């Protein structure tokens, strides 16, 4: 009898705690969605009901911001960063794992040390470099330093350990060249690794802030993250507009999360296997 009372108490405690945490985690999303339908004053006053200002907020957002251009900028940066990072890193991960040599092993270990380098220590030299190359205020400058990623190389190498060597042997018997084996056999077989890595790189590129903030200086080149940040830091920010912007900026990552939930979690877990 005592145990059953204790069980009920612990169940209440468990569900209460987990439920509260789940609520707190989701609440800002609800607040954001409701906020988009309310006027700025109502949002700040904490109104928690759908309002009638949605159309006004959207209209204001579109007048304040060149929406197609900003999204095109974000998309461009993200697509280039993602495609190039995946290509370069999977080549390297494959290369390190399949063609082993003492020298490359040493370089690989040195490369992993770069994981500890904080970006703050790179931004000044990178900024000067981009300046010398005449790339300030270009999207090339945003993408270029992000392509070589020790973490993604590491991720691909770890996953390549599961790539069956028989496939490689068979392909060699068939007379395929190394690049053909990579392109026609490795890439299709490793689809799920690519999917998980895609999510990591996509999220990082789409949400990247500090580096674009430094190199993108005109309104014509700014990405959505920069635009939201500057809308919200106005002296009197129009929170209705900010909410619309935040929703639009979050939708792509939210979509990726819901459609690729398994790979998403796998991508987050990445290295620990």
């Amino acid at each position, binding site marked *: 009898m005592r145990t059953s009372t204790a069980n009920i108490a612990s169940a209440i405690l*468990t569900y209460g*705690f*987990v*439920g509260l*945490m*789940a609520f*707190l*985690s*989701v609440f*800002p*999303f609800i*607040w*954001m969605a409701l*906020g988009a339908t309310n006027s700025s004053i109502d949002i*700040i006053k*904490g109104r928690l009901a759908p309002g009638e200002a949605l159309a006004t907020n959207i209209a204001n957002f579109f007048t304040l911001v060149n929406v197609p251009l900003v999204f095109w900028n974000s998309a461009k940066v993200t697509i280039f960063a993602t495609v190039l990072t995946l290509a*370069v890193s999977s*080549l*390297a991960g494959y*290369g*390190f794992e*399949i*063609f*082993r*040599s003492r020298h*490359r092993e040493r370089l690989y270990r040195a*490369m992993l040390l*770069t994981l*500890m*380098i*904080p970006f*703050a*220590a*790179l*931004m*000044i*030299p990178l*900024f000067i470099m981009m300046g010398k190359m005449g790339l300030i205020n270009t999207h090339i400058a945003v993408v270029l*330093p992000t392509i*070589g*990623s*020790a973490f993604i190389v590491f991720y691909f190498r770890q996953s390549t350990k599961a790539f069956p060597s028989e496939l490689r042997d068979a392909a060699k018997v068939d007379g395929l060249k*190394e690049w053909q084996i990579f392109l026609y056999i490795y890439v299709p077989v490793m689809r799920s690794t690519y999917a998980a890595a895609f999510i990591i790189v996509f999220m990082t590129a789409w*949400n990247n*802030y*500090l580096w674009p903030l*430094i190199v993108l200086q005109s309104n014509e080149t700014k990405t959505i*993250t920069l635009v*939201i*940040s500057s809308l*919200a*830091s106005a002296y009197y920010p129009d929170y209705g507009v900010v909410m619309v912007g935040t929703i639009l*900026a*979050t939708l792509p*990552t939210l979509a990726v999360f819901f459609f690729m939930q398994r790979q998403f*979690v796998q991508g*987050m*877990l990445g*290295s*620990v296997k």
Partner: protein
Amino acid sequence: MALARRGGIGRYYDVNGWLFVAPALGLIALFMVYPIFWSLWMSFQSGRGMMMKFAGFGNIVRLWNDAVFIKALTNTMTYFVVQVPIMILLALILASLLNNPRLVGRAFFRTAIFLPCVTSLVAYSVLFKGMFAFDGIVNSTLQAIGIIASPIPWQTHPFWAKALVIIAITWRWTGYNMIFYLAALQNIDRSIYEVARIDGVPAWARFTHITIPLLKPVILFTTVISTIGTLQLFDEVYNLTEGKGGPSNATLTLSLYIYNLTFRFMPNFGYAATVSYVIVILVAILAFLQFFLARERDK
């Protein structure tokens, strides 16, 4: 003949190996390794903009006497010391609760708690700034429930401004860490817990004596990641405080200070590089320390 052939294969292997890894290594060398040494060199230079001259240890002496730097360093360490343990403990508790297969709706709870991870650091900072406004939703709710009598000055009081940053980061990253622990817990045989339960080991003791020791490698891994992340904190503070790290530098972080030194004030690349090396050294020391501590406890 045989030897020559083997040499041939060796070289073929080697050339291919280099071709595959060259693009990544080249880019990492150019945009990570070269700049990190450049900023080391820069940290011994001083001057405005590109006009720099050798300054020896002048920048390090300046660090010592720079009250704003000391403030930024203390703030950064405060975030790290307070936030990382809270978040890791919270994530561990949530993971061990959600690992129970009898918990109804655990897929829903898991997804809900993980959801903050999809937001960009800028987006959620902006949301938190609005929710924690002086007459905003958080204060009015807390007042309605009766937890506080008067609104908390989340953005104008040094203590509460720091608390807000900590709350915000904890919201964003707890679910992320929880996922790591959940994945690791799945590899633990549940019968261990059953046996402990039948033997009358209470829940908290199962947590401290089974869960935590078995998850130690993952806890270490996430602690290192969180440490490195917290030491580099920028986006949140910048967007919660309009880039100022206010009120009166109470939330300023090292990264924000470096940004301000370089791009907001009269640019002093040399001194900013010196400050950035403080982060490099802190990351290295703390990562080393955590690995060392974990190994010590193993003995």
